[in-house]
């Protein structure tokens, strides 16, 4: 994991001093609310329906046990004892007191955390694959590049007042687990035939009210040019992105307007001026960034024997077997596995986590995974480096603490935004809908038979819950002051990214569990063998689903 040096600490200390002074001026009435707005947003502070909301960056999802314990302390001391993992791998507190925010940020800075640029019209936290560094299908570890981007984008003087927010995601694996096609910039780090490292660059993806899949603008960007190329993209966007209409201000609208080809040419032209400047990465810098993401002290283990033991344990314990199947995945090192702790037990807001749970995760990370954990954009937690021989013990503890719901990747592992319970932009609540659906599908074996199935819920068209890219997506809409839900089918955020199609007229909250049940029924009666929902949908189309759901009762 990246470790701050004196430079990083100094910069962050200066930032906190700056924000403390700004908050003071605001409270004294010397700074108008509309002037304070961009300043507080760039420190992670929203003003919400019930209270402020503070968003803390978890850079590319990497977090250590010390940081987890500090978050627990903050949840307990400054908030109501819990926080929330977001779809961009960050942590949100829902009830901080504005006057205490500078103190919270100072406490976080001590453990190398911050809310800098977690909101506002600037470059946000760079997200990545939660299995980076351990995935079996990884080509290049994306994290050193994420860290390079983090530093470059932090307090960037030219790009702090962009037309709109700007999100970057990086993946380094054959299968995309970072949703790079729906980011403002999506980067795939890979090796070319000559063995050189570089990036495939996508631009102009995004969700929100106008969902767009990103366009490929460069097939291979040599790694040393990463920052100058990003700088070129951002500069074009800063100068040409629309500022007259906030709903048309994202880079996706600009790319669409000028076409991806023209945009690529503009970037290329700008980049030609920049590429050989000082911003060009040096070998030493790339190596320095890499040096923080070396392998932990893995033991040399007999992978086969370890697996055989786990298989034995699984035979004797059905619960463990199920957990293994859904929540545990392979690892590039023999004898190790990556474990996902589920934050989606029925009855808890998806992604919510209490102060005590944070501490338990810290303990589990210390005991089983070299003191590190990762947040995922599906709103769960990963322990990436667990010895297979420890899996059983880990499972038992995780079960006691409430993280062992064996539902990762299934219908009940719902991605869900805070919605109307917290968010002032919401058209409808989303958390109760998630819970109602989880209750409808309370038979885990039934859920397993359905296989991988992503169900995503957003409380409004801002799409924080990624509803466009759920195999099933649910969107809260407002009809004459009443909460309704529109259903979309066929979305995906993987390599085959697609945006869901709207099924038809929306439904009331009470109808939702039954509607989802009907969709699943159609899937079951049409699927072949082990076919997944998304594949069945792509094969048979929307008509059979529509028919069933909108059939008139006779």
């Amino acid at each position, binding site marked *: 994991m990246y470790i701050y040096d004196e430079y990083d600490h100094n910069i962050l200390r200066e*930032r906190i001093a700056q924000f403390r002074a700004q908050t003071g001026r605001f409270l004294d009435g010397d700074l108008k609310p509309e002037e304070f707005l961009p300043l507080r947003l760039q420190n992670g502070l929203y003003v919400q329906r019930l209270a402020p909301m503070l968003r803390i960056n978890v850079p590319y999802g990497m977090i250590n046990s010390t940081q987890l314990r500090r978050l627990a302390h903050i949840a307990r001391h400054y908030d109501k004892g819990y926080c929330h993992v977001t779809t961009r791998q960050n942590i949100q507190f829902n009830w901080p007191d504005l006057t205490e925010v500078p103190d919270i940020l100072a406490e976080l800075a001590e453990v190398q955390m911050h809310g800098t640029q977690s909101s506002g019209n600037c470059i946000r936290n760079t997200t990545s694959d939660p299995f980076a560094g351990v995935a079996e299908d990884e080509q290049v570890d994306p994290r050193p590049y994420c860290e390079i981007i983090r530093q470059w984008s*932090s307090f960037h*003087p*030219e790009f702090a007042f962009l037309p709109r927010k700007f999100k970057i995601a990086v993946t380094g694996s054959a299968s995309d687990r970072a949703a790079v096609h729906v980011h403002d910039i999506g980067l795939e780090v890979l090796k070319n035939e000559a063995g050189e490292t570089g990036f495939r660059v996508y631009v102009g993806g995004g969700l929100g009210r106008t969902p767009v899949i990103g366009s490929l603008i460069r097939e291979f960007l040599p790694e040393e040019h990463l920052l100058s190329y990003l700088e070129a993209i951002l500069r074009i966007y800063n100068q040409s992105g629309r500022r007259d209409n906030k709903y048309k201000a994202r880079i996706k609208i600009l790319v669409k307007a000028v076409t991806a080809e023209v945009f690529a040419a503009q970037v290329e032209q700008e980049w030609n001026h920049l590429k050989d400047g000082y911003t060009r990465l040096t070998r030493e810098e790339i190596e320095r960034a890499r040096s923080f993401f070396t392998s932990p002290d893995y033991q040399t283990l007999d992978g086969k024997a370890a697996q055989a033991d786990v298989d034995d344990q699984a035979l004797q314990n059905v619960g463990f077997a199920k957990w293994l199947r859904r929540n545990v995945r392979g690892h590039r090192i023999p004898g190790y596995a990556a474990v996902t702790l589920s934050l989606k037990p029925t009855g808890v807001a998806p992604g919510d986590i209490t102060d005590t749970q944070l501490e338990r995760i810290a303990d589990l990370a210390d005991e089983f995974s070299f003191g590190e954990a990762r947040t995922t954009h599906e709103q769960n937690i990963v322990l990436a480096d667990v010895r297979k021989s420890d899996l059983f013990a880990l499972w038992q503890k995780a079960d006691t603490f409430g993280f062992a719901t064996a539902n990762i990747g299934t219908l009940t592992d719902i991605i869900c935004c805070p919605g109307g319970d917290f968010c002032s932009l919401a058209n409808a609540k989303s958390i109760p809908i998630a819970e109602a659906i989880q209750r409808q599908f309370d038979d885990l074996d039934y859920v397993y038979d359905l296989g991988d199935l992503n169900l995503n819920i957003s409380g409004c068209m801002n799409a924080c819950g990624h509803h466009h890219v759920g195999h099933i997506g649910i969107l809260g809409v407002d009809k004459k002051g009443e909460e309704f839900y529109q259903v979309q089918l066929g979305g995906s955020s993987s390599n085959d990214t697609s945006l869901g199609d709207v099924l038809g007229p929306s439904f009331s909250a009470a109808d939702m569990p039954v509607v989802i049940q009907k969709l699943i029924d159609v899937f079951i009666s049409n699927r072949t063998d082990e076919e997944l929902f998304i594949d069945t949908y792509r094969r048979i189309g929307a008509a059979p689903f529509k028919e069933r759901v909108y059939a008139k009762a006779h």
Partner: protein
Amino acid sequence: MPKLIKDGVITPNEWTLLEKPEGDAASQEVPAGKVIVPLTVWQAQKETLQQRNDIGVWLDSGELASELGDDAKSLPLVAVHFPLFMDGRGFSTARLLRERFGFTGELRAIGYFLRDQLCYLRRCGVNAFEFTHNEISLEDALESLNDFTEYYQASVDQPLPLFRRRH
């Protein structure tokens, strides 16, 4: 005389700002003395204005540095207008004027920007700040000029990114 911040100190403002003309830029009268003219007026009257050494040019936020281009080199002053502090186009304009078009004179921010933006503006090459829109204490504003003393990225004030200085 109204004041502004220049090179880190509060100094009298010797320049007059000429608004964008309603009508034809070519027939806009440019008074004597130190005047900052709109880009359109500069372009329309370049031949004559070039004869003077007391003409500056201001760029609106939608006007790119390249529209002034190499002309910048011969000017004592270029101003970048911020119609609203949320409009960050001027940050790019400033950098380009300095880094691509070799402008070495006074680079002035004008319009509605915040003292909280001073440090970033300075980093982008702006060395003078005239708050034409908001009432602001320049003494207080000075404090924000150096909110940061260390930076990750290259910019005008520090062309070497931290990674080239760190080792």
